């Protein structure tokens, strides 16, 4: 949650107004957008997360990633290890998505990339299992390439993402 939102909620509570974000009916539902995660080390889900928690999270993430992508894309990903998505903005440019890694930008001969480097570093703002984030990133690239263009941090080398695990 942003400091501004926290400030607004604090004032509303002080004035006796309704809380715009009351506690959920099921407190077990974790809403990661309510917290800040900047303090976390890379590739971590946070303090108190056990080895079995990581294993369970990754297993559940796999189910959702498959459901998000659909069986055909999931099988393709398992077979070739990546999914390619052609740009709708720049013909001849392809985004190559790999689980837990930076996006690779591929350009056909004669096509100029809008970025100086070939790898785009894009992370979720809160920790997610890497297969789950892969499926989410796929949706962003396919449906909202404008956001990818706006937030991507181009890098000269490949590397694992820091906010996934």
């Amino acid at each position, binding site marked *: 949650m942003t400091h501004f939102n926290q400030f607004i909620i604090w004032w509303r509570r002080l004035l006796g107004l309704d809380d715009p974000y009351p506690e959920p009916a099921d407190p077990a539902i*974790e*809403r990661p*957008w309510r917290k800040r995660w900047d303090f976390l080390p890379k590739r971590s889900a946070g303090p108190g*997360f056990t080895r079995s*928690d990581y294993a369970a999270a990754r297993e559940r993430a796999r189910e959702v990633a498959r*459901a998000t992508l659909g069986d055909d894309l999931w099988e393709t990903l398992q077979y070739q290890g990546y999914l390619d998505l052609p740009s709708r903005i720049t013909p001849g440019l392809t985004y190559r998505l790999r689980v837990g890694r930076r996006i690779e930008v591929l350009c056909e001969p004669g096509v100029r990339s809008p970025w100086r480097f070939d790898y785009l570093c894009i992370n*979720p703002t809160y920790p*997610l299992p890497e297969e*789950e984030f892969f499926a989410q990133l796929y949706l*962003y690239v396919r449906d909202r390439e404008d956001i990818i263009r706006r937030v991507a941090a181009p890098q000269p080398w490949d590397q694992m993402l820091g906010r996934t695990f």
Partner: protein
Amino acid sequence: MGRIIVANRRGHQVVEWTDTDTEEARLQIAEAERILREAREHGCMVSKKVDGQHVLDTKPFDPSVEEYQIIAPIAGG
């Protein structure tokens, strides 16, 4: 029956609602709508299942949708 997949570090958690005409169903739908709105107001995207595949969606919550998913905001670097 509809559901929201809340993707988080637990892998995911699910908020469900039924479309029966009962007070309990109305409360479930209100809760689901509130979660979706709250997530959007904090910068999340939302996808919904269409023909077996998820697509990003900006329309208001619709209880007849089979499945929503809350998509994390993204940042470079």
